[in-house]
Structure formats: structure tokens, C-alpha cells
């Protein structure tokens, strides 16, 4: 969604002559202040938002993570003690493990299904109607997806358990058993994101020029071989981008958990963001919550960096 590509800048060539004409002196290119005054006017509102709700909170969040702060009174500086407590906090390690399990199940399922779907669409049906149908779940709020499946997967009278019983298998306590709770959350999210991710990959497939396939076909390449040697490598930048975005999103799972299992049964679905929410807002421990949030932030940064670096997401093999 957000690949950064260098674009020809229309301002570069067309700008200079206008300036000299208007001000009646030779243009000095853009080494001077250029349109700075006008620009400041145009970015002023966005700048206010950036500073007030992104930059200052980021610094304040880091500061709070070094304090003891229970919302009443003032934050009290306690150095790295929050982080020391976190290192020894079994609930934190549990949350990390549970979140990791969720991310792995979710990403593997979602990416595999989406890739398959994208290829199917690319080969046999490119109609907007089909793409629209597959996109439907993504347009629903997480809360709605969660409630919908909470009902369909109900142990007693949910339709899915009804179907499972017809096939002769025992009913599954999707939300009620510690073993199933996280896979269930991952399945709900996979359902919601599958079509969206497939469309992203589909867009990548569309961008691969036909000539490449034609050349392969002339050389007598078999379908599987073409897929492995041509489609996948050329799709790599899109796949990496999709992976980075979905992995980062998955680490921040909250809505579906909050609406359905609220961290339970026992600690089975107490994912990181839910744990942060509980510490900060239920237990009014803002310092500790902030420290947890810093750790989540760091994890995401490292994960994104590793993915970009090792999968070379910002380079295309098409050039």
C-alpha cells in the first residue's frame, strides 16, 4: 500500500522560469527558501497534528515508561525499574508467547490462502464482482467479525459445531478451551483479511508484464517451474510489503480478543496489546503500561527491519 517510489517531480523543471518572470530577478533554483512561507501555511494543520498527537506522545510515552504513574498525582521517575519488573513478569512472557503464536498461525494461513486466491483470480476470473465479494469481510469492523464468529462458533448452538458434529467429530470449544482460543482468534482474523491480502497480491501479479511469461512459455517452462522461477521472484517486493504490513498489524491484535475472550480462558488469549490495556486502564499502572508499549514498539521495529533487510523488500527484480 505504501511503497515509496521515486517520482518525477513536476516542480523541478517548470518552476524556475515562473519565478524569474514574477520577481523580475534571476532564479536561484531551490537553494533559497523557495515557497517556504506558502508551504508553512499549507502544512500548518498537519504539523499541529503531527506534533501534538505523534511526536510529543512518542517522547512522553518513552518518558512515562521510566516512571511510576497511577494517573492520580504526578509521574515519579524510577529509572529502568519497570523494565526490570517486566523481565521477571510471567504474564508478560505469556503475552509475548501467546501473541507470537497468534502472529505465526495468522500470517502463515493468511499469506498462503491469499497467495492461492490471488493466483486463482489472476488465472480464471478478474471480475470486480468477485474481488468485491472477497473484500467484504475486510470492510467489517473487527468487532463485527468477532461477534459474527462468536455466534457461528458457539459451542452449543453455533452452526460450525453443528457441521462438525455431522461429520462425526466431537464439538470444539473454540473460545472456551485454552488450546483452541488463540487459533480461533487467528482464524477470525484470517477470514477478515484473506480477501484484502489476496487483492494486494493480485495487484502485484497484474504488474508482472506478460512478455516475461511468454518468454518462459516459448522456452518450454512448466507451470510449476514458471511459478517458482518467475512469478514468486517478481512478486517478492509486493509479498514483502504485504508481510511487513500484516505482521505488524497482527502483533497489535486487540479488538477481537477484547470483544470475545477478554484474555481468557485463564491467560490463553492475553495478547500483548490486551495486557498493556489491562495494566494501564484497569490497574491504572501507566508507567508499566508505557514500558510494555515501548517493548511492543521495539519488537515491531526490529521485525520490520529484519523483513525489509533479508527479503530485500525495497528492490524489484523487474528493473
Amino acid at each position: 500500500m505504501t511503497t515509496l517510489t521515486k517520482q518525477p517531480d513536476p516542480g523541478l523543471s517548470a518552476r524556475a522560469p515562473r519565478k524569474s518572470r514574477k520577481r523580475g530577478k534571476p532564479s536561484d533554483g531551490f537553494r533559497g527558501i523557495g515557497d517556504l512561507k506558502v508551504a508553512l501555511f499549507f502544512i500548518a494543520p498537519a504539523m499541529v497534528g503531527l506534533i501534538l498527537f505523534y511526536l510529543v506522545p512518542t517522547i512522553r510515552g518513552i518518558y512515562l515508561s521510566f516512571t511510576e504513574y497511577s494517573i492520580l498525582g504526578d509521574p515519579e521517575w524510577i529509572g529502568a525499574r519497570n523494565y526490570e519488573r517486566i523481565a521477571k513478569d510471567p504474564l508478560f512472557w505469556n503475552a509475548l508467547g501467546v501473541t507470537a503464536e497468534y502472529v505465526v498461525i495468522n500470517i502463515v494461513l493468511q499469506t498462503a490462502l491469499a497467495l492461492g486466491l490471488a493466483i486463482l483470480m489472476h488465472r480464471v476470473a478478474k471480475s470486480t464482482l468477485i474481488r468485491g465479494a472477497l473484500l467484504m469481510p475486510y470492510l467489517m469492523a473487527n468487532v463485527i467479525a468477532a461477534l459474527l464468529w462468536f455466534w457461528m462458533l458457539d459451542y452449543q448452538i453455533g452452526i460450525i459445531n453443528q457441521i462438525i458434529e455431522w461429520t462425526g467429530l466431537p464439538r470444539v470449544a473454540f473460545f472456551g478451551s485454552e488450546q483452541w482460543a488463540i487459533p480461533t482468534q487467528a482464524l477470525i482474523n484470517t477470514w477478515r483479511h484473506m480477501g484484502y491480502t489476496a487483492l494486494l497480491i493480485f495487484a502485484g501479479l497484474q504488474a508482472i508484464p506478460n512478455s516475461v511469461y511468454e518468454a518462459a512459455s516459448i522456452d518450454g517452462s512448466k507451470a510449476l517451474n514458471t511459478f517458482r522461477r518467475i512469478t514468486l521472484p517478481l512478486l517478492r517486493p509486493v509479498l514483502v510489503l504485504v508481510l511487513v504490513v500484516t505482521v505488524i498489524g497482527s502483533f497489535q491484535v486487540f479488538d477481537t480478543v477484547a470483544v470475545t475472550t477478554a484474555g481468557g480462558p485463564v491467560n490463553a488469549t492475553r495478547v500483548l496489546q490486551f495486557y498493556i490495556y489491562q495494566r494501564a486502564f484497569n490497574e491504572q499502572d501507566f508507567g508499566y503500561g508505557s514500558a510494555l508499549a515501548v517493548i511492543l514498539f521495539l519488537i515491531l521495529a526490529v521485525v520490520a527491519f529484519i523483513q525489509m533487510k533479508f527479503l530485500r523488500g525495497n528492490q524489484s527484480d523487474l528493473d
Partner: protein
Amino acid sequence: MTTFTSPKNAVRRPLRRPFNWRRTIALILLAVAIAVSILPFYWVLRTALSSNGSLAANSANLLPADFNLGAFKRVFGLQSASEAIAEGGSGASINFWQYLWNSLLFSGITTACAVFFSSMAAYAFSRLRWKGRDTVFSLFLATMLVPPIFTALPNFLLIKNLGLLNSMLGLVLPYLFMTPFAIFFMRQFFLNMSREVEEAAMLDGAKHWRIFFQIIMPNAAAPIATLALLTFMGQWNEYFWPLLVGTSEESRVLTVGLGVFKSQSPQGAPDWSGLMAATLVSATPVLILFAIFGKRIVNSIGFNGTK
């Protein structure tokens, strides 16, 4: 669906294989995926039109069990408490209309302001030349990497200190000025706009704000509409921030209200039909937008700044 057999596709397929079964299997798999995506919505509708008492006995019946509109009446507060309890509801009132209105306000205000202010910023980042432009732009882009939970805690404190907890203003404030994605999206479009008309206006001595309002914005109507749609739907579905800041009846939005509805269930069986009716009604605005602008929305997916 009509493109299945169009000859154009046959040419575009990388490898032409005469075996029809491959194609058939592919179509079946695609049909399964579509069914998995769509059928749950039917199940929601079917449940919403059922009565709670009959759900258990007819859990696999494809048609509504004991068809009635009680669930929808319950959601919109058209049932008395005793009627609601008799039909398996909690009897507690839920201010559905209020939540609906709050959701509309929250999504509408934030979309209008964020899209407008972001377009302004995008103009400065694409059509104007000034020192430090690219540095400032990367600063905006970098904020996309900050997880929302991280800024949510300090932002909550800020809103609390301003005394704006449980108010619409507190709810919309962080989203009002810009979203990094919106700036990026509009900038990408502005960069590719032809400069000729703008040049002509410049020669006539038009000021930048006039050029922005009278030339740039009208010419960007299509991407602005797409961006507004995407932003609105995203805001409509927002849950975490409204959960923190909007917990009073006056400031609660639908997503948060749905959670409350769910937890309101009395001892014993939840009010499934009521819950599904509420879910369906909450999804309706997005479904309507999708029905009208489906093509625009679908085609915007995969936007990666290179088109």
C-alpha cells in the same frame, strides 16, 4: 462473473493448457472462497430474523427459526423491557440511535477534516518547492511505523488533562489534523498531475490558495472521494481509541456499544438474535457505501503509489 470465458483471458494466461478440469477446479476453489466470505453475513441476517427461544432447537435450519422482527425492535428500542426479557433480551436499554449518531459524527468529522488538511499538506509536499521539504515529509511518513497503542496512552492522558474525556471533541481530536496515509495518498496523486493549467493560473497572478481550491482540489475529486471513503470506513470500524475515550452514553460509538450489548446478556443464554440484529445494523452504512462505490473501493486496493 461474465469474464470467465472471455478470449482476452485465454491470451493473458501464462500457460495455455487444454485440460478443462484445471480450470474447473480453480473455479470451484474460488467459489468456496467467495462462499466463506459471504455466507456468514447470511447467517447473521438469518439469526437476526429468528427468535431466541427457537434458535437452539433449529440451530442448523437454514431459514430463520420462528421468523419475527423482535430482535430489530429490541435494537431500536421499540420493545418494552418486559417484552424484551420475554424474548430473551436483557431488558436493559441500549441507546442504539445515539450510538449510530455518534458513529456518524465521529467518522464524518474526522474524515472531512483529515482529508482536507492532509490534502493541503500533500500540496505543499508535491507542488511547492521549499527547503527541508523531503525531510519533513519523511518525518510524516515515519509516524506510520508508530503503533497506535504506543501513542494512545499519552494521547489519553492529554485528552484527560484537557477535560475532554467522554466528549465528541476528545474522540475526534487526534484524528482531526491528518493521517500519514492520507498525506502520502494525495501527494502521490498531486505529483502526477499536469502542471499546465496551474502554470496558466500562475501567470495570471493567482495565489497558491486560489490555485489549490480552484484548480488542484476540483481536479483531484476522484482520489479525494476514494480517500474519503477509505478513511470513513476505517473510522467507522475504529474500536480501541473510542473504547478508551468514549465510554459515556453521550460519546459511545457503535463498535463500543456492540461490546456493551454483548456483555449485557443476562445469566444463561446470550441474546443472540438481538446481538446479530445490532451487528447487522452496525454494518449497514458500510454495506451501503460498498454497494454504491464498490468498484472504486475494490480498485483502490493495491494502490502502492506507483500508479
